[in-house]
Structures are given as structure tokens and as C-alpha cells.
């Protein structure tokens, strides 16, 4: 849960925040593909070392760290299960097996980092604009923005309903499993009914704001690639090209930790 929460957009005024969402998404994809392409500690460490300056440049170190903390449980789980299963199947632990497990764990962290930086620094408004450029119908786009817009509103409402029912003596964590689920009915029903009512009001307000008046809807914001965008774009593409060429034609990568037996 905390992993999802830490992916929330944080306002900022940095180079990374201002980057064209399409370029940023391409960068995320490049990081993603490289970390999937290679199964060695060296390239993954390199990628990770490229990502850290980006996190710092976006001034979102705290938010990023939160997302890594949220992911650390899964990361630890990956490492431990790997080690245990190696020991179980091969009967011994060698340095290259440790390296292999470390690589898997690092791959996961690189993936989390690339996506968290993207979501933390890209405003949903810009994201929807990118979707619009990608010729996704506006209705889907609108639904996406509305969903994000109403998350805090619905969370507040759920809290109020819960408070109101607890004030009427409802004890949520009382009873066995089935009773506990039943306890949530007095909370879910008002929430659902209010949402239906709300959606009617939304529809009325949309009509009053001329929703769907013309096919050629305009947008207050527009996307255009400036010089910084171009620099990042070229960097991302070259990185991808180098990674692919090396993967296909380059020599085998050495292990960092050697392959001696530990026990």
C-alpha cells in the first residue's frame, strides 16, 4: 500500500518535472528494457548509477526513498528465496549464486526506481495530454483524470461515514471473519449511494460546461519538444542502442564477486 501511495505526483519545478512526458516515458521504457535484457550486476549497477542523479535532479529523494522502502520487503523476499532455493537444490552457496540473487534484487529496485521517478514527477494533467497525443479517445482520458481527481474526495467521505457509524456504536473489528465483513455494509452502502448521487451531479455540471460540444476539443496545454527534451531523448535512444549492440555482439560480462565457494 505504501508503495502505491509513494507513487503520488509531487509538484516541483525541476528539469525532470518539466520534461516532456513522452520523453520521460521513453526513458522509463529504456531503463526497463535494459534491466530485463541483462542478468549481470555490472550493467544493472551502471543503470542504477544513472538513475540516482535523475532522482536528485528532480529533488524527490525523499519520495523516491519512500517508494524503495515500500519495495524493500519484496526486494528482501526475492533475495532470500533465491538463496534458500539455491542452497536447497545445489547444496552449496557460491559467490556467483550470491551475485545472481543480488542481481535479481537490484533489477527489481531499478524497475521500481524508473517507474517511481516517472509517476512522482509527471502531473496527471500532462500524462493525459500525452495520452491525448497518442490518439486515445478523450472519454477515456477524462475518466482517467476524474478518477485521480476524486481519490482524495472519496477517501475523505469514507472517513466521515466511518466516523458517523462508529458514533452510532458500530464496532468494525468485533466478531468473527463473517461478522467483520458484514460490519462494513453500513459504510459501503452510504458510500455507494453518495457516489451515484455524485455522478449525477457531475454529469449535470459537465453538461453545463458544454462537455462534448465539439469534436475538435482544444487543450490549454500543449506538448512540444524543446532543447532539453531533445538532449534527454537522444541520450535515452543512444543508451538503448549501445545496450542492444553490446548485448548482441559484445563479450561475455565477468562476474564481480568471482565464483569461490562460501559454504
Amino acid at each position, binding site marked *: 500500500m505504501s508503495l502505491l501511495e509513494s507513487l503520488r505526483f509531487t509538484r516541483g519545478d525541476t528539469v525532470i518535472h518539466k520534461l516532456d512526458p513522452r520523453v520521460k516515458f521513453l526513458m522509463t521504457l529504456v531503463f526497463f528494457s535494459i534491466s530485463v535484457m541483462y542478468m549481470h550486476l555490472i550493467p544493472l549497477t551502471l543503470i542504477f548509477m544513472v538513475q540516482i542523479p535523475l532522482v536528485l535532479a528532480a529533488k524527490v529523494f525523499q519520495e523516491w526513498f519512500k517508494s524503495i522502502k515500500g519495495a524493500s520487503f519484496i526486494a528482501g523476499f526475492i533475495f532470500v528465496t533465491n538463496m534458500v532455493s539455491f542452497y536447497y537444490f545445489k547444496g552449496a552457496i557460491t559467490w556467483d549464486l550470491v551475485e545472481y540473487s543480488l542481481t535479481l534484487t537490484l533489477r527489481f529496485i531499478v524497475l521500481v526506481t524508473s517507474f517511481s521517478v516517472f509517476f512522482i514527477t509527471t502531473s496527471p494533467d500532462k500524462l493525459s495530454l500525452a495520452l491525448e497525443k497518442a490518439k486515445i479517445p478523450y472519454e477515456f482520458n477524462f475518466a482517467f483524470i476524474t478518477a485521480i481527481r476524486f481519490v482524495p474526495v472519496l477517501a475523505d467521505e469514507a472517513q466521515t461515514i466511518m466516523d*458517523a457509524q462508529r*458514533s*452510532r456504536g458500530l464496532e468494525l473489528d468485533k466478531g468473527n471473519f463473517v461478522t467483520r465483513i458484514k460490519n462494513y455494509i453500513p459504510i459501503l452502502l452510504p458510500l455507494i449511494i453518495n457516489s451515484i448521487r*455524485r455522478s449525477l*451531479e*457531475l454529469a449535470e455540471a459537465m453538461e453545463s*460546461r*458544454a462537455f462534448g460540444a*465539439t469534436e475538435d476539443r482544444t487543450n490549454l496545454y500543449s506538448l512540444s519538444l524543446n532543447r532539453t527534451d531533445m538532449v534527454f531523448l537522444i541520450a535515452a535512444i543512444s543508451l538503448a542502442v549501445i545496450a542492444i549492440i553490446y548485448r548482441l555482439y559484445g563479450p561475455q560480462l565477468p562476474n564481480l564477486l568471482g565464483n569461490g565457494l562460501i559454504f
Partner: protein
Amino acid sequence: MGIVKVEDLSYTYPNSDEPAIKDINLDIKAGEFVLLTGPSGCGKTTFCRTLNGLIPKFYNGTLTGKVTVNDLDVSEHSTMDLAQSVGLIFQNPDNQIFALTVEKDIAFGLENLGVSKADMNREIDWAAETTGIEKLRNRATHELSGGQKQRLTIAGILAMHPSIIVMDEPTSFLDPVGAEHIFDVLHRLNKDYGMTVIIIEHRIDIAAKYVDRIIVFDKGMVRSDGKPEEILANEDTKLLGVGIPRILDLAKRFKSDDLFSPLPLSATNFYDQISNKLSLRDIPRVKDSIPEDLLALAGEYHHNPLIEVKDVHYSYPGNVKALRGVNLTINSNDYVAIMGENGAGKTTLVKHFNGLLRPKSGSITISGEDISKTSVAQLARKIGLVFQNPDDQLFEESVEKEIGFALHNFGFKQDMIDKRVTWALNLLDISQYREKSPFTLSGGERKRVAMASVLAWDPDILVLDEPTIGQDYGQKERLRHFLTQLRTQGKTVVIVTHDVEFVAESQPHIVLMAQGNVVAEGSTKEVMNRTDLLTQCSVAQPEVTRLCAMLEKHGMPKDIVDVEEAYQLLSRRLVEESQ
């Protein structure tokens, strides 16, 4: 030729036999500022929705008659076409904001119309400036206060340049200062840009000062139509349950004796009319200090502390400080009103009384016992908390079950539950709805069901959060009598409210809050005179008190909140002066 012409308009909702509005004929001229009012369910909201065709296009149902707006026959144009002529704004700002940033939301309508980017930026600048939110342009919409959100919805409509703005109770969720802001904006649009403004509002005391014309609806028909002073001075309007501004109520009492017969809509207005009739003088201030021996006598009356809040701090997740060291004592059988602007921490404080929130530091005791270890369910037995919006708690299939819900939770026996439910139904005068679904009732009735569902277990302390919001004058009067009745039964009543006129009429002990602190408390008379504190807490002074303060140099005591008291003093003075 009027900008809005309505001829023989009737409309019946689908699945209903009775028409919601019938035989309406109206002619509203360009540049008028019109207030629509009337008791709940009188058809004013339905009428507004016919102006941009939401009725009948969105709701279906049968409509007869003709509505012309800006020379466009509403039945021949779609709502989105009409959007550029008529801008409709609704009660809840949250349900009218679509974007995540302010400027993007103002642009929403323009984007839908396909306006070019350059034009859009110009319109946004203008709309944001006119509504006074230009500094918030790049802010996230969910961070705005209620008043700012409602101004944003006006800006969003304004950007499309309609010639008519129609608003359905836009200030219900706002504190008095936020509400005045909205009226200031509307006033400016009306005066500077000649926009026609049509507004539905229960807060007549604020609205009456601004409007040129009042149309009163009742049972789906136009009951009366005319200048604000005339309509509001009419006895018929009062009988319908429309809230008459108290300053006008005061003035009307003078009519019988012919010394003075003004029709003012504000204290300033009243002052202008009466000040030349009263000579300047000092009055002997007998009221300032109560004689010592009287205090000694009063000492026989014991205060029984019931709720004691000591140095309570609370912050919401994300380190948002909501309470900063609150100290407060509420005595047994007290009637307390907690007032202050939105976000001052009023609701946060009352949620501590039954343990919904626990203090980060400090302590709360009830009847002398520390409540930090007591569960919400146990505390709720003693303290009934009724929330602002009944829709946040109603869920059962019948009113009877709804009221019985808490009784089941508290483990009452079935025969006892039946008795209690009957008792609570009678207490709130809703017995006739016993078998009905709470969802089919009107807003005011749902509110009473919510109250009954708490009163049913007979808690010693009743806490009501914003009980008067969205209630018409008649409903407020009933509530006031009901609260008095509860107090004679020995209950302690705490209300959280913005409604200064309700407070002036029922005269509770007032607790003023600002920024998470109690800044003052005292009797209604005392607190309503501290203009500096009231301003700090965004609480409006009652108009009658404002008048008396203005008349202080004419020898009026300024701590008057009651209409009758003000009338007695003023009429006596007028008689004196005329001799």
C-alpha cells in the same frame, strides 16, 4: 424584452403524478439580480434546471409551456449550446471541478467549445481576476478551501461568457465570510459587466442586501415577486417559512406605532434612517458590572463540569496541525455553540469527545473520568454525535431500522428497541415515515431521521455538527424549539455552527475558535460584541448587534442580540425623543 421569458411553464418528473412546477410566468430583464426563495421542495431548483434545458433533456419527464433565454427557445437547443448563454452553478463545488489545477479547470468549458489556446489564456486571466483567484492559478484544486473552490466554479462558468448566471445555493457549505466573498463577486459581475444573476439562497440575511428582486416560490408556483423590501416585509412571506432578515424583522415592529416606519435590509441602512431621530447622549452603563452581592447570590448555582478538555493537541497525517493546545470546560446542562471559520478545528475538537480522534497530547475527561482508554462505542452511549450530512450515515431500508441500528449495536433487547424507536420517532415528529425508506425523504426529513437515530439511545450529551446547513427558516425554528426542549430534560447540547442568526435567537454559551485554538468564550451577548475577535474568527456580527453598536453614541447599549430587546429600547427612546 426580457432576457429570460417563461410562459405557462409546468413540469412533472418521471415517476411522479404531481407537477414539480406549474403555470409559471416570468419575465427577467437583462442586468437584474434576482433571488429565488421559498420553503424546501417548492420547485425553485427544478425551475433553474429548465433554464439551460437540463430539464427536461437530462431528467426526461413532461414539460409544457415555453422558456426563452437570450432569444433562444430552450427546447430547440442542446444544453451545451445553451452553456454560452446560461451558466449554471450548483451547490457542491467538489462535484463541479474536473481538473487537477485551477487554470486547467477554468479552461474546461473553453476546451470543450474548441477555443484556441491564446483566447483561452486571455479568458482564464479575466475570469480568475474577476473572481479574485488569480493568485491561485497554478494551485492544485484539492488544496483549495471551500470558498475558493466555489469561486473557481464561478470562474469556470464565467470564462465561457454567459450573459446569465444561475446559482443553486452556492454558499451552503461556506462560512459567512466565504459567502460574502461569493456575493461580492456576483455583485461585481452584475454591476460592472451587466450580467443577469439568478440565485437560489436560504441565507436571505446576506443575499437581501445585494439583489434587486425577490421571487418567492411555493408548491411549484410563483407566490410573490417584487422588490426585496416589499416581499420580505410581507407577512405572507414569513408565514411560508422564508427567513426574514432580523434587521427587517426589527424594523417591522415599528410599523404599528407611527413614529417610524423604515424598510431596511442592513444595519447601515437602518442606521441611516433612524440616527437623525435620536439625539446624541451618553447612557449610564448599568449593565457593565454586576453588583458584588448579586454574584455572591449567583454562587449558589453550581457548575458541574461534564467535559473537560485540557491542553489538547492534534495533527492529521502529514503533520497538519488541527488543534494546538485547546482548553475547554463544558458544564452539565450547558448549551454551547462552537463557532469559527472553516478549518479552525471545530469538528476535529468534537470528534475528540467520543474518541473518534485521540489527542496527540493533553487529556479529555468526561464526568471526571479520563477517556483515553474508553472505546468509541462506550463513549457514544453517553455522547451522541450527529454529523452534518445525513447521507453519510443513512443506509437501512426503513426509517424504523435506521433508528434501531445503534440500539442493536449497544445490545438493547428487542422490546426495548421498539419502545425507543417509537419514542424517538415521536420526539422528532416523523412517526408517519416509520415504514418508509429514508432515501425517499426530503433533505430536512433525512436530517431529522439522522438525529432521531442518535437520540434513540438517550445520550446525556448531544453534539450537532452544522445542524442548520441547508435548512429553511421553518426547519430552523423547529430545531431551535427542539433544542430548548432537550435542555429542559437535562441534556447538554453542543452545536458547531456558522449560523450567527440562529445563535442570536437561541443565545448559547459561545466558544470561538481560530487556527486550532479557543480564542474566546462567553455568553452570546459578550462574544457578539468583540468585533476584533469575530473578525479574526470569520464570524459575522448579528445585524441587530451591529446596529446597536452604531447607535452607541446615541445612548444605546451595544450588547444587544435579541430583536425584541432592541425594539423595546429603541421604541422607548423614540417616544422620549418625540415628547
